[in-house]
């Protein structure tokens, strides 16, 4: 069996009868079993569910009624509730939690025929930029296993890059899809806030959290996203907007496309290897007919501080439900209620999670609310306005995803501020609720570099088309860590 690398390839192979979905599924389960002990990208495989779904997909395909993703094995980040399978959020707190229901995004993908082969590792409750904060251990970058894969969707990114599956779901609160996609050399998109329902996605920062696909190619991302997206009456913040067929509009020439270059994103502090690859990629887009326009997003420098007030504030409330009373970890022999709460939560949550809860609770507390939370919301509005004026003159904004390539494991674990600054280029669009993506744009010292594209509200289609056109002219997205010839 010639193993497919992309969803498109797999769908062709399945349609041509080169392999069945069951065969394909077993293949990926075997790869995971063989290689996961090194990478640790997967928390649990769901073999029984996967085989049952694959058998169904094969039957459906034979009966000519398979969905658009019929038989395609994927992984779900372990933050998505999946009925009948453990949903841990990378935390000891939920090590024993088997969800009684599935997230909307999961349901939609399942309905389209996707096969869940397992649950991907992640930073605990999506808090982290390196995947070193998981109760299930660090995830290693398949390109260099002493490096981090990025976070928080590091397991999803490493799994897709290493060929554990054809696609994975991720979530992005301040860069958690884009930065690991960049570090692992894959394609990842965070859609407009509200595009994909948050129902069943364990909340970190509710006003920022968005689900999106992580794939090898923009075309696969388009197919995944149009399947996951759509209004959901169970999520009041989901957008009641039609979802275009992104896959049908990937052949638009880039002539006339105005690409904004944000001077604040191309400044000191950016690794020179990253800068070179990003500049090359931008020239490639220019070569495809796009015109380059300089734009300014003057409040960029305030984005990280604002984000690290708002997201922790929301998480401090979102994580209150993990109290040892109804589900999840409960300490042994509590002597009273206070003890039950204190020990269950101290034992169940890791250091980074406890730290963010404390920061968030502080930012909301009486006497500090105005100085922190309210101020952060004001900054958020200014950042949003920056983008709104920028998009008056450009169609897309291009720039780096992260200041550096994947850094060594343990390098920043004692320096939370340095770790938080990893998010400097991804957080502004998160605060604004804009769609943004990372696409492979080259290598620096044998490590992948991502190019970030930021689109206007609901304009994922234009972004995906530009990414697809770029991928027609480059092959960075097709390089694999085990075989890849790197520059």
């Amino acid at each position, binding site marked *: 069996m010639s193993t497919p690398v992309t969803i498109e390839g797999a769908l062709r192979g399945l349609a041509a009868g080169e392999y069945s979905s069951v065969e394909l599924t077993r293949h990926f389960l075997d790869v995971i079993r063989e290689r996961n002990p090194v990478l640790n990208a997967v928390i649990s495989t769901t073999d029984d569910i996967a085989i049952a779904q694959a058998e169904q997909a094969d039957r459906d395909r034979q009966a000519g009624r398979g969905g658009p993703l019929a038989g395609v094995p994927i992984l779900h980040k372990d933050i998505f509730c999946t009925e009948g399978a453990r949903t841990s959020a990378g935390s000891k707190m939920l090590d024993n939690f088997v969800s*009684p*229901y599935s997230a909307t995004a999961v349901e939609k993908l399942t309905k389209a025929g996707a096969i869940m082969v397992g649950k991907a590792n992640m930073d605990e409750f999506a808090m982290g930029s390196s995947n070193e904060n998981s109760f299930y251990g660090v995830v290693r970058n398949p390109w260099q296993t002493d490096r981090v894969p990025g976070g928080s969707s590091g397991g999803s990114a490493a799994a897709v890059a290493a060929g554990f599956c054809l696609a994975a779901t991720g979530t992005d609160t301040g860069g958690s899809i884009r930065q690991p996609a960049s570090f692992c050399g894959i394609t990842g998109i965070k859609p407009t806030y509200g595009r994909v329902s948050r129902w*069943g996605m364990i909340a970190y920062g509710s006003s920022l959290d968005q689900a999106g696909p992580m794939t090898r190619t923009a075309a696969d991302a388009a197919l995944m996203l149009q399947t996951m997206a759509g209004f959901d009456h169970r999520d*009041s913040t989901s957008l009641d907007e039609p979802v275009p067929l992104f896959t049908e509009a990937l052949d638009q020439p880039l002539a006339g496309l105005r690409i904004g270059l944000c001077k604040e994103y191309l400044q000191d502090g950016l690794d020179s290897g990253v800068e070179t690859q990003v500049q090359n990629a931008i020239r490639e887009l220019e070569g495809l007919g796009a015109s380059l326009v300089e734009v300014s997003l003057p409040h960029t420098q305030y984005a990280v501080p604002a984000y690290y007030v708002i997201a922790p504030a929301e998480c401090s*409330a979102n994580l*209150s*439900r993990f109290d040892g009373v*109804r589900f999840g970890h409960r300490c042994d022999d509590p002597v009273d209620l206070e003890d039950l709460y204190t020990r269950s939560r101290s034992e169940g949550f890791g250091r980074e999670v406890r730290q963010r809860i404390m920061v968030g609770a502080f930012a*909301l507390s009486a006497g500090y*609310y105005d100085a922190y939370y309210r101020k952060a919301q004001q900054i958020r509005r200014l950042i949003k306005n920056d983008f709104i004026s920028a998009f008056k003159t450009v169609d897309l904004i291009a720039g780096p995803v992260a200041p550096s390539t994947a850094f060594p494991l343990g390098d920043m674990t004692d320096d939370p501020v340095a770790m938080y600054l990893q998010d400097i280029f991804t957080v502004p669009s998160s605060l604004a609720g804009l769609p943004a993506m990372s696409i492979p744009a080259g290598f620096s010292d044998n490590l992948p570099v991502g190019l970030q594209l930021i689109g206007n509200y609901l304009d994922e289609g234009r972004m995906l088309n530009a990414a697809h056109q770029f991928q027609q002219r480059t092959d960075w997205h097709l390089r694999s860590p085990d075989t890849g010839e790197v520059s």
Partner: protein
Amino acid sequence: MTRQGWEVVIGLEIHTQLNTASKLFSGSSAQFGSAPNSQASLVDLGFPGVLPVVNIAVFRKAISFGLAIGATINRTSVFDRKNYFYPDLPKGYQITQLDQPIVVGGEVTVTLSDDSTKTIRVTRAHLEEDAGKSLHENYQGQSGIDLNRAGTPLIEIVSEPDMRSTDEAVAYARKIHQLVTFLDVSDGDMSQGSFRCDANVSVRPIGETELGTRTETKNINSFRFLERAIDFEIDRQIEVLENGGRVVQETRLYDPDRDETRTMRSKETSMDYRYFPEPDLLPVVLEQAFIDDIAVSLPELPEARKTRFVTDYQLPEADAQILTGSRALADYFEAVARISGDARLASNWIRVELLGRLNRDEIELTHSPVTAEQLGQLTARIQDGTISGKIAKDIFDALWLKRADDVDHYIEENGLRQMTDSSSIEPIVDQVINDNPAQVEQYRAGKTRVLGFLVGQVMKASGGKANPRQVNELFRSRLG
């Protein structure tokens, strides 16, 4: 204890459960009394990944109340999270409204026991979800959690500190209760916790303009307890101050068994709720047309209904006032009046017999053992002469004790039909005349008062079934 020289200042916060079919943020039934946790969905249980969705029906209820008290309706209202840990609060925060509540301002005018009136201002009324219940008894030292109530919609109605006596506070609470029941906003059932009061009480020397330190007595679930709790608190605070002490700002609980309030938590240990806007819900923006539509379809309010009772049923104003005390009572009265065909009779029976018993046994009208249909049937049988008033009282007792169900059936079964046929009464009258020669003599001598005694004897002998008027006439004709 004398309150001479002291001014009392009271403000009330009233939590009213809205009688919507489903909860505030989930599709679960909001009905009371089901098996524990049988009406708690994943949303109510605060499971990982679940999200709230506003039940728009709650806005109709809250807006009805706001319009009825002349308040401003905020077309944009925002939900906030109020953070605290408690086992019956599944999410670890309550979704409520802090800065932009649905209802702002408004006022109600209350009638006091001396018939004077006073206007009390309402600060605001906001929507919020109720918590579940913690049950501490009968669990072998553990606590039970019932989350059926979690997520039940409430409006919290906050008054200005406008009340200056217990009388005013109770009159205000009754007025709000009357309004929410008439508006069909709440069932108002206090025994089931649908209407709960928190009383903020402080005292200050007369003439002082600064407010004294207040205490908040929480979760008072009857008007009688409200009266007692406030009285207790006024006296306690005056005593503390007169003995040179200071009132501690704190939250207190009223214990009806001991008839006292006691400390629940003091301000020193009071919580910082860390409110912030609920990111899972967008601000609710209402069309003016939505509000206007509610305004034109507001149900008949208590004042209008009272006036109608006076005109349509020719009831004395005072009786109409009593019968419009709650929507349930007014509905009950109208049902009885319709069935009996005699509004005054219905009014008398309800005010004297029914309300008397309900008060005595501390039962809410909605749980009355005697239904409006039964009382209607009973009064209809008095009205058409089938039974005497005395027999009716016996039947009412039987209904109250659930020994009777269908009134007509009970009358037939027990042979309680009034004797209207004079041939069956005449022999009894003659027998009484024979048996009581002395009284007959007295009557004939002009002492007509003894007639009452003689009639009584006939009533007794007939088992109450004789028609007293008819018996009177028979005596008059025989002894005349």
